C-alpha cells in the first residue's frame, strides 16, 4: 500500500495508541472520564484522530439501546473503542457523535 496519512496533535499532552504509538486524542477533548469499556475505564472524547470507523451496530449498553460504530486505530487496526452514532433516550443524546477510547488501549505522553 502507499504511505499512511497520520495526523499529529499539538501537545504537549497527548493520548496515543499503546501498540503503534500514533496520536489518538488530546486531553482537551475529554468530555467525561466516567465511562466503562470492555477492559475497564474509558473516556468520552469530542474528537479523535487517526481512527477508522467500523459498520453501524445496535447495542444494548449499560445506559440503554444505542447505535454505535467500533473505532480502529488507522495505523495498526486494533480496536480502540467506539463512537456513538445514535442514542435512543433523551438523557443519552449528548453522547451522539462523540468517541469512547478505552484507557487500557492508550498510553499517555507529556504528563
Amino acid at each position, binding site marked *: 500500500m502507499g504511505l499512511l496519512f497520520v495526523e499529529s496533535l*499539538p501537545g504537549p499532552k497527548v493520548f496515543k495508541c499503546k501498540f503503534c504509538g500514533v496520536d489518538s486524542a488530546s486531553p482537551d477533548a475529554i468530555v467525561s472520564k466516567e465511562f466503562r469499556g470492555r477492559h475497564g475505564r474509558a473516556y468520552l472524547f469530542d474528537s479523535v484522530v487517526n481512527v477508522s470507523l467500523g459498520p453501524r451496530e445496535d447495542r444494548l449498553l449499560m445506559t440503554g439501546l444505542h447505535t454505535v460504530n467500533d473505532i480502529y486505530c488507522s495505523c495498526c487496526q486494533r480496536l480502540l473503542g467506539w463512537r456513538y452514532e445514535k442514542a435512543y433516550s433523551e438523557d443519552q443524546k449528548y453522547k451522539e457523535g462523540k468517541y469512547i477510547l478505552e484507557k487500557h488501549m492508550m498510553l499517555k505522553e507529556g504528563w
Partner: protein
Amino acid sequence: MGLAKVVVGCPRLEKLSLKWCREISDIGIDLLSKKCHQLRSLDISYLKVGNESLRSISSLEKLEELAMVCCSCIDDDGLGLLSKGSSSLKRVDVSRCDHVTSQGLASLLEGHNFLQKLNAADSLHEMEQCFLSNLAKLKDTLTVLRLDGLEVSASVLQAIGESCNNLTEIGLSKCNGVTDEGISSLVAPCSRLRVIDLTCCHLLTNKALDSIAANCKMVECLRLESCSSISEKGLQQIATYCPILKEIDLTDCGVNDAALQHLAECSQLQILKLGLCSSISDKGLAFISSSCRKLIELDLYRCSSITDDGLAALANGCKKIKMLNLCYCNKITDNGLVHLGSMEELTNLELRCLVRITSIGISSVAIGCKNLIELDLKRCYSIDDTGLWALARSALNLRQLTISYCQVTGLGLCHLMSSLRCLQDVKMVHLSWVSIEGFEMALRAACGRLKKLKMLNGLKDVLSPELLQMLQASGCRIRWVNKPLVYKD
C-alpha cells in the same frame, strides 16, 4: 490492475478521481466505463490516456462531471467521440489540453447542450466561429466559462455576452486583446456575473470598471492583477455599485490610499490583495480597518510604506484576519508584531526579509496567535535562538516554518524540532550558525513527523546516511538547493 479491482468490486461507484495516476491507460478507462454505469463524476486529469478513453467514457449515461486537465494526448477527435454518447455532461474541464481547438469544443457542445460549467483555460489559442455559434445554444444553462490564455477581440467578447447571458463566472485571465470595449459588450447582457477574472488584461482602464459597476451589481469576486491602468476613480464606481464584493485582487495595479478609502465602503470584503502596490500607506490601511470587519485575507507583499501604525489599525479593526502577507515591508519592527499578537485567528503569516524584527517580536506573535499554522521568516536576519524557543513553547499548532538565513544555532533548532509535534514542513537553507551535529540532532528529534524539508546541497554529503534513510522511510521528501549566500535588503 488496481483500477480493475476497484472497478469490479464497486459497480455502484458514482464519483472517481484518478488524477495523477500516470500508469493508467485506455484499457483501464475502458474497463471502468463497462463496469461502473452509475458513474456521475470522473477525473482523469494529468493522465496519458488518449481518444479511445473518451470513446469508452461516452458510453457512461449518467456522467455529469468530467475533468481532463492537462491530458495532452486528447484532441479534437476525442471530443468528437465524447459528444456521441448521451448528452448528460454538466461540468467539463479541459484546461491545459494542448491539442484541443475550437473545433473539438464545438463538437463537444453539439453533443451536450445542458452544459453548466466549461473550463477551457490555457488550451485554446484562438476562438473560431463554430465554437461561438455552439456557445449560443447553451444560453440557458451555461453559468461558468473559463477561457484563460485565449486570443480574443471585442467582437468575440460581445458574442459571448450575447450568447450566454446567464453567466455567473467568466475567466479571461492572461487573454490577449481584452479591451474596455470588449468588456462593456460582455457584461452588458450578463447582469448575473459574480466572478470576473481579468488577471493580466493590461489594456483595461477605468472604463471597464465603470461598465462592470453599471451592469453587474452582484459581483463578489473581481481579479484585476496587473491591470495597471486602473485607478481610484474606477474603484470608486465598483465600491459604490457592487456592495456585496467579497474578494478583490489588485496586485501590481499601482493603487493608492484614495482607492482604499473607496474600497472601504465594501463592508463584506473578505479577501484583499494589494501586492506590489508601493504607494499604499498606513492611511489606506486605516480606511480599510475601520469598516471591513469581515476581512480574512490581506496581501501586502512589497507594500514598503507600511509601518507599525498600519498594523495597529489592522489589529484594532480586522480581528478576523487569518492570512497576512507582509513580505518586504521592511519598516515594520517588533512593535508592529506586538499588534499582530492580538489577531487571535491568524493562521498564515509571511514576514520575509523584515530585517528590523527580532525574537522579541516573534515571541509576541507566538504567544498571541495560538492558531498559527504557517510562518515564513526567510531573511529575517535578526531572528536568533530566542525566537525559536518562543515558537517551541507557544506555537504548538505550527505545521510549516521557514527560517532560511536566520541567525539560529543548533541548540534552538533542536529544541524547536522536538517540541512542535505538528511541524511537518521546514525550510532551512543557509543556517550558517548551525553545526552538522546540530542538524543531525534536530532532524533525528522530529524524524517521524517531518514530511518536507529544504536544505543546502552541501549537507547531503555530510549528514549521516542512516538519518537520510530514516527520513525517507517515514515519507519525508527533501529538496536540496544550491543557492549562493547573498544578503538582500
